[in-house]
């Protein structure tokens, strides 16, 4: 019963908040990733059965979500998600959340989490990606961005030297 009341209250609250959303609220998302890059390949370090994996670091750079309003006292309920490294089954890292925002004369709100972490990635050509998204729930007002990079996870070499001419 309490759960039902809470959900009803949250739904009504959300509807009430959405009623104050500015029609021309501009949302911006920007994503960037710097690890791994094209040229950072990784020597596999873990063998599971016949497959090799490497622990690969991911980090976002300068990713942000942003809401630009303008009219003082306008309000919006905004959710955001910034993720790095979610690709091809990788378990990347993310920052997701939300808040009620109220614009003043400056008309700006921004969220710029610094996300980093590692994930096990199988050997081969891989993609790293960062994506950012921001939206006003129950509306079509949303913005999305994604940056993708290519890197290689290589089999470990046998022995220390060798290779090359």
């Amino acid at each position, binding site marked *: 019963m309490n759960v039902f009341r809470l959900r009803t209250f949250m739904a009504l609250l959300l509807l009430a908040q959405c009623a104050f959303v500015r029609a021309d609220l501009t949302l911006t998302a920007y994503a960037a990733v710097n690890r791994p890059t094209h040229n950072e390949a990784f020597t596999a370090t873990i063998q599971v059965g016949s497959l090799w994996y490497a622990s690969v670091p991911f980090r976002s750079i300068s990713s942000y979500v942003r809401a630009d309003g303008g009219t003082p006292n306008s309000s919006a309920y905004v959710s955001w998600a910034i993720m790095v490294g979610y690709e091809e089954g990788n378990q990347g890292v993310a920052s997701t959340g939300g808040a009620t925002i109220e614009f003043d004369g400056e008309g700006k709100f*921004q969220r710029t989490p610094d996300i980093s972490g590692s994930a096990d990635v199988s050997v081969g050509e891989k993609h790293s990606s960062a994506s950012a998204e921001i939206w006003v729930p129950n509306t079509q007002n949303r913005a999305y961005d994604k940056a993708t990079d290519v890197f290689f996870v290589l089999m470990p070499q046998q022995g220390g030297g060798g290779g090359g*001419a």
Partner: protein
Amino acid sequence: MARKDPSAPLAMALAICTAITAAAALTATADRYDPVTDKELASDARLARPVSVECARIYLGDLAERMTAQTGEAISADETSGASDLRIMASVREVPAWRVMAGVTGLLSYRLALWQWERKGEPGAAEYRLVRTRGAQSWPHALRERAQSEFERLTSARMRDTFRTPEQWTERLADPTPVTIEERAGWGLQVFAATLPEDAQKAVLRGEAKARLTVSRLPPWGKRLVEDLYNRMRPWRTLPDGSTAPAPFPEDLVAYTSHGRDPTPTLFIEMGDMGGYGYVGGDPLAVAFRNHVAGAWLGDADVPEHTALETAKLAATAKHELAKHPPLDHPWVALAERTDVPLLALAPVGRASRSFASEGAGTLGGYLRALGRRDYAIHKWRHGLLLVTYAAWFRDEQELHPCSWPVVRRLREACRSNSGLPTLGALVRVAVDLTPEQLDVLSDDWAPAKSLIPIRSTLEALDRDPELHRQLRDSGKATIKGPAARRAAASIGSIAISAVERVSLAVRTVGADGDRQLAFDVLFYDKSGNRLGGNLPRFAIHRPWAPHPD
């Protein structure tokens, strides 16, 4: 007997001098480029020939070459003034060449910062070139300086205006009314001013540093701001198990300056997982600056609005398709693809915003206004061409680090001659001729350019040693030893350069014809023959990544 005129020799000499001067003047006119007006462009019958170019981002050097090919007129973009290096969006179909030429200068010129067409030779057999004048070359720097100084001036003024004495803070804290929206910006700015020394404030305002402030160390009125915002914003976050929970009360604040897509900076203060508001700068400064830029952009030959065309409906889906590369799938391209109106634009690099696609169902004017809100875009009309730019263009990476069109042209030609893959020689030239920042700019159009940045010093080693280059090209393998190896490893960044004794290079084309790629492996070894670093740089170009939207 006729009397000899004593002045005859002098007259003869004067006549000869005059003739020589006239001949020299004629020669000079024929050899010298002189500025031409739009009217003079229109008066050259050969420039009445129609041209068509549909490209999301085209170098002006490339545009000029295409116009030459389509008109038979010699048209170029000057390389020494950097006119050839800028990339614009062009969507013109069967438009007289002179109108496109006038549109280009209209798009890029500002009062006292002119781009101009110059002509050499007589009409009918003339050569035209596009030049970026000195005023236009220094204009982006002047705008950057002005935007920053206006921001700092505004910040100082706001700090003075919102200052409160300890007694005033005590009085305000006694009032249980939460921080109001009207109070918020000034209140936050006072937190910034009271907790950071002046030099640290300057570093933040200039974008040189972020400042981290500990909430527990803030004065009581600073903590009150954080508490009131936390209670009003009710922030939440997702936990590792996927459930959501209220975000914890912030322990730290982070103050920083950010532009986003704005022409001017905004001071943000983020609070833990809540994100943060802009406290000074913001929309008012950005709009004022956009108006300043727009005022300087409108020339005598321009019309600010075209009612008939701007009230026309845009097509719901693309009518034309512009040649483009990722990441140019963005609203500016969508605009060009949904209208028949000829347009030239200086567009920001960026990707699609899903919410923006619905704007295409409206009118051209409505779409332009939406672009204005989103990107501080401005537009005008010249000779029937729609010209669109944006107020923050002077902060674009292509303005800060323009990528040389002659270098790009050479790279494209090398790719064309090698079934789409660059040759080793072409890679060496690009890496040597462009800075890392320019390579980054080139990667907007040609993704592999970014991969060259870490191996740039290795490619420079090949440029310094033609014999090494030849060996690698012919046999696919080469080795660099000793000090030369350490120089070749300088740009890698992820290994101890001093330990490098040998660099082993291998280059080959791998894969079947339909999926060819150029693989460039670089291995580093120490004196004992141990491979250095866990990373193995590899450069690989897939065939579809050829750098030209032909």
